[in-house]
């Protein structure tokens, strides 16, 4: 390909796809390189939770903006991602959990999340499906969920309409040159004046192409879904520790998540479930919503989630390499991704971002310490 693009994005998850979309709509010629298909990794297999009660305090202002974007997805994205806006409940069953919940809800409320602590009885008024043993709950009227597997369809249509050159099933193998950027792929070199690295857990090996060492911890999140069942719940339910996410989709399936860990390997891309961990996750779910026990488990799966050393996003310019950027590792990332990607797009387009980015200088290991790590 002899075209020189204005922007090359490597990684077609929700981060990369959003940056590509906003830049293309602003007039840039954009190439999006994706090893598989758009939003088929973590962006397509996550729990779709749009909650503030699992969001880190520092990210609450971003998540609030992003929540509003999700709620209006057809307006700005142009396509439906099956978003349901509903009440969210974070449950405490024990005294310890009540303490944790109360403290955390207060911190999140200070950051702008409208979370209130309510009694177990009040919680059952909001969610009749709850079991009897709830002591207190954090209640947030700004919550909800998307249908994560529809992300790919919605974004793909939007990207095509915006004129983004979609290079799906194309493997980026390295960056050969930086001025302009030449990305080496299995389908030949792709040239561009700017580069965004948005490869999820793979941003670590991708940044290494640029000589930058940014360690990423790989989480293997497990999820389960029941077959369609009669309504058993109407809210998004979690617990104080953050290790449960539970919601019933309008078509009747219930998705059970919460970051219980499976096994996996970033290098081979293989991952799988740990049965005992699935069972505990399901027990937790049935403890919260007892009627769920009647349902049958239809499918369990895993997805790779990236985590930085301080569990905050890595979003901003790559130091020392003009016009190279990274967009990744947004904790509870699905919720905040469209907004944070929009901020990065503003930065790439030469505008002042509405809010601060999350510069990666703090996460980069210097060559000396990098050597000790490897």
């Amino acid at each position, binding site marked *: 390909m002899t075209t020189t693009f204005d922007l090359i994005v490597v990684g077609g998850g929700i981060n990369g796809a959003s940056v590509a979309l906003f830049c293309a709509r602003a007039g840039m010629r954009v190439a999006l390189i994706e090893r598989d298909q758009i939003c088929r990794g973590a962006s397509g297999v996550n729990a779709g939770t749009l909650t503030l009660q699992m969001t880190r305090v520092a990210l609450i202002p971003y998540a609030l903006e992003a929540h509003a974007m999700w709620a209006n997805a057809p307006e700005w994205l142009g396509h439906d991602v099956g978003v349901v806006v509903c009440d969210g409940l974070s449950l405490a069953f024990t005294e310890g959990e009540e303490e944790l919940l109360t403290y955390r809800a207060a911190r999140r409320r200070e950051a702008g999340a409208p979370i209130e602590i309510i009694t177990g009885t009040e919680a059952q008024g909001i969610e009749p499906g709850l079991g009897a043993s709830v002591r207190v709950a954090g209640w947030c009227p700004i919550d909800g969920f998307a249908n994560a597997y529809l992300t790919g369809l919605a974004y793909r249509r939007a990207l095509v309409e915006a004129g983004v050159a979609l290079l799906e099933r194309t493997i980026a193998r390295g960056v050969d040159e930086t001025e302009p950027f030449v990305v080496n792929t299995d389908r030949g070199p792709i040239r561009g004046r700017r580069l965004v690295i948005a490869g999820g857990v793979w941003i670590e090996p991708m940044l290494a192409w640029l000589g930058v060492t940014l360690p990423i911890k790989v989480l293997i999140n497990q999820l389960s879904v029941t*077959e*369609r069942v*009669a309504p058993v719940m109407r809210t998004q339910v979690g617990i104080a520790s953050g290790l449960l996410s539970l919601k019933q989709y309008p*078509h*009747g399936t219930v998705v059970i998540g919460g970051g219980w860990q499976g096994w996996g390997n970033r290098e081979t891309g293989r991952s799988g479930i740990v049965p005992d961990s699935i069972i505990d996750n399901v027990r937790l779910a049935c403890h919260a919503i007892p009627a769920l026990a*009647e*349902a*049958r488990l239809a499918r369990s799966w895993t997805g790779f989630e990236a985590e930085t050393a301080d569990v905050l996003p890595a979003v901003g310019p790559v130091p020392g390499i003009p016009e190279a950027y990274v967009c990744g590792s947004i904790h509870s990332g699905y919720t905040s991704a469209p907004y944070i990607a929009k901020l990065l797009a503003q930065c790439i387009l030469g505008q002042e971002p509405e809010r601060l980015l999350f510069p990666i200088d703090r996460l980069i290991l210097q060559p000396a310490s990098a050597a000790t790590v490897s």
Partner: protein
Amino acid sequence: MPDRVAVRMAGYQRGATVQLIVDGRTIAAHDGEMLAAALMAAGLWRLRTSPRNGTGRGAFCLMGVCQECAIFVDGRLQQACSVEVRDGMHLELRGAP
């Protein structure tokens, strides 16, 4: 109009005649036979309603694969093709008229 039913072949000894309660209605069956077959023999072909079109569905594969015969047996969702008839079973064909 003749009843559309599956027919037990002559020349076999079967388990004792027992009664099943299907959505409040009593039907006869034989102890130990496949529940899905007993329902067919009682003319109960329609076991569930499809989720989008709302059309009736009945047991299709009888070998545990298709899930079309999953019904509530004594309160538990089970595949009627892998359950043996026992006297007094309570069955619910939820969603099916």
